[in-house]
């Protein structure tokens, strides 16, 4: 497990020292979400109705921002070779990288989301459910993103390709995520929360496995 920890810490270290990607995701999330009142009009009822959808779509897009660089840098400078040669299985390399991506770009969204939702006139009573749904949904986004990033490794315009690959796969998370905290929905959203948990439980072993297979191809 030394290797897993070392890789995760190095990625966090790099993210903070270079200061770019992580902060960028949150700033993008907040700014882009706050554009909606200008586009949709400032009526509180309309905004309150759409707040959950806005938050989720923006969270989805924010998670895509740094995705194309997830493996690219390590692939270009030869670090990925060393990771493949190390005793750490490539699946765990992917898991460490996805976890790093989530800690840097997903976790801050959990803090920013209630603020943004409140600015959009979202009913405060629904905030815990929204945050819980995001907490279960955003790690899945990072895991799916890791698969996309591994598949597009070495491709030109990888950033666009990743989005095209990953966004359709993320639709179920969007549907359940929005439904979990939608004020118009009946019920307490527990079913949707559980489904989000199930998706995460499914992605946790499958995505690293698929991404590792793609990385092996890229390293040949």
């Amino acid at each position, binding site marked *: 497990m*030394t*290797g897993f*920890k*070392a*890789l995760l810490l*190095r990625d966090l*270290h*790099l993210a903070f*020292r*270079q200061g770019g990607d992580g902060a960028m995701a949150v700033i993008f999330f907040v700014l882009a979400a706050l554009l909606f009142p200008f586009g949709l009009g400032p009526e509180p009822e309309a905004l309150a109705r759409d707040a959950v959808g806005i938050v989720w779509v923006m969270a989805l897009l924010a998670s895509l921002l740094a995705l194309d660089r997830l493996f690219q*840098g390590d692939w*270009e*400078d*030869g*670090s990925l*070779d*060393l*990771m*493949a*040669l*190390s*005793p*750490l299985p490539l699946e765990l390399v992917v898991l460490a990288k996805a976890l790093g991506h989530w800690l840097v770009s997903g976790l801050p969204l959990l803090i920013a989301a209630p603020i943004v939702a409140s600015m959009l006139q979202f009913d405060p009573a629904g905030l815990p459910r929204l945050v819980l749904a995001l907490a279960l949904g955003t790690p899945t986004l990072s895991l799916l993103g890791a698969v996309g990033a591994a598949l597009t490794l070495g491709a030109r315009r990888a950033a666009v390709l990743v989005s095209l690959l990953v966004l359709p796969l993320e639709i179920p998370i969007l549907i359940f995520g929005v439904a979990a905290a939608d004020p118009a929905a009946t019920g307490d959203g527990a079913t949707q929360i559980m489904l989000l948990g199930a998706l995460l439980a499914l992605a946790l072993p499958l995505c690293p496995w698929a991404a590792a297979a793609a990385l092996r191809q890229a*390293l*040949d």
Partner: protein
Amino acid sequence: MRLTAEGLAATRGERPLFDGLGFALGPGDTLVLTGPNGSGKSSLLRLIAGFGRQTAGALRWDGKPLADDLEAYRRQLHYVGHQEALKPALSVVETLRFWADLADRPLHDPAGPLAAMGLGHKAATACRFLSSGQRRRLALTRLILWDAPLWLLDEPTVGLDDEALGLIAGLIERHRAGGGITVLSTHQPLPLAGARQLSLSDFPPARPVVAAEW
């Protein structure tokens, strides 16, 4: 401890690189790969490191195909490729520590290996401030961070000054004396005692692949 290749053939993309290549290396052997650019030296070294698959032939470590137990085999080798695997924002010592942790090897004293490679005064420097020769030296420091019987070095001499060339030759010589195997590619003559040469142009692909018709 034996590395053997028999009837090895490989392609890069669609282009065949070499065919019928073979060698047998035992403890203390050094093999220098030569050949013009694009002849497949790097591909052969990557193949030996367990990346990709040959199109024909077999690579064996102690008589067993590499793929049989790739993980155990890879723990026995050091691979230093073209890229130095350095992050501009990490310091020299942090880089060494990361490499050792990743390989699950203890790193007690990074200062010793760094001093041996002439980088003692650069320990706290961020990698972005290293010159290309210093980057190369740092990548090669990995060789002496922990012991591995098989060294695979892809153009280790690129960008190195005469002093560093002597250092590398000394490292390989010490490795050889200790019974280690080294396979390296180089365009610069290195003073290596008893090194065997293998020219990849002696193993041309059997037939040129006919370009696919469109």
